């Protein structure tokens, strides 16, 4: 009798955690194609401003640095501004970013937004511009890109896990599609 009660209690607990797991996985992964929670748009006098919320996942290959990025796109000037936040314990003066994807290499100059302290690290906030077609080709890459950031004293090599990249690129591609559909006459 007592054993039955214990087994019943376990079943209830297992059911509860199974429900939790299914719900969380449904909302966080199953709806990854649902892009509404990943971007915001605002209608302006001269076009539409799109903002893709920050994504994380890029990590330094030979160090403790981590990078997040967010994208702003304005239809009026057809250029996307990519803001990157690099968190690193090192003192760096960032110069440029080299984005290696598929067999291509895109080199862009970085422009400083701010540098501030973040926990025990430094937060380097920089930005660079890309055209929508460049952005599209990066997020259509079959393998995750590798980013090399050149700094005064050294180079920072950042990579992202395949699964994370697949999820992020799915979302960004869908947002780019949305922009293109809205841009069509």
């Amino acid at each position, binding site marked *: 009798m007592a054993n039955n009660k214990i087994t019943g209690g376990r079943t209830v*607990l297992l*059911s509860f955690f199974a429900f*939790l797991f299914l719900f*969380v996985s449904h909302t966080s992964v199953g709806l990854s194609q649902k892009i509404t*929670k990943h971007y*915001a748009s605002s209608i*302006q006098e001269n076009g539409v*401003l799109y903002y893709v919320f920050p994504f994380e996942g890029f990590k330094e290959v030979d160090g403790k640095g981590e990078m997040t990025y967010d994208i702003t796109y*304005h239809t009026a000037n057809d250029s996307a501004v990519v803001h990157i936040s690099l968190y690193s314990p090192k003192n760096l003066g960032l110069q440029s970013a080299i984005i290696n994807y598929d067999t291509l290499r895109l080199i862009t100059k970085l422009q400083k*937004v701010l540098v501030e302290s973040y926990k025990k690290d430094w937060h380097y906030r920089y930005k660079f511009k890309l055209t929508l077609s460049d952005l599209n080709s990066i997020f259509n890459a079959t393998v995750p890109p590798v980013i090399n950031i050149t700094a005064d004293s050294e180079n920072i090599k950042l990579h992202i896990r395949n699964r994370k990249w697949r999820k992020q690129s799915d979302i960004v591609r869908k947002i780019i599609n949305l922009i293109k559909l809205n841009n069509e006459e």
Partner: protein
Amino acid sequence: MKKLIVLVAIVALFLFSSCAAYVASPALGALYTDVKYPMAVTSNANSAKVGSAEVTSILGIVATGDASIDAAAKSAGITKIHHVDVHATSILGIFATYTVLVYGE
């Protein structure tokens, strides 16, 4: 039937106890929230930049981050604010985020 009651009680206890991560929102969902709403508008014209800042809460026990308007504006180099929106999400009271979006130039 007894098992079902116990299960409902556990879920209810979890959702409605103080140990849950929820954020301020005009419409709150106990199971799932994904809401965008306005915070402020100014008389400044046009906005070509967007900056965001976020705080996160786990189980209502740990909450960290800086979701100030200043932090969001600084992140995009905004000096003239046009309007401010908020994006609030929460899943089962386990994980919640509160994101401030600042539009401006």
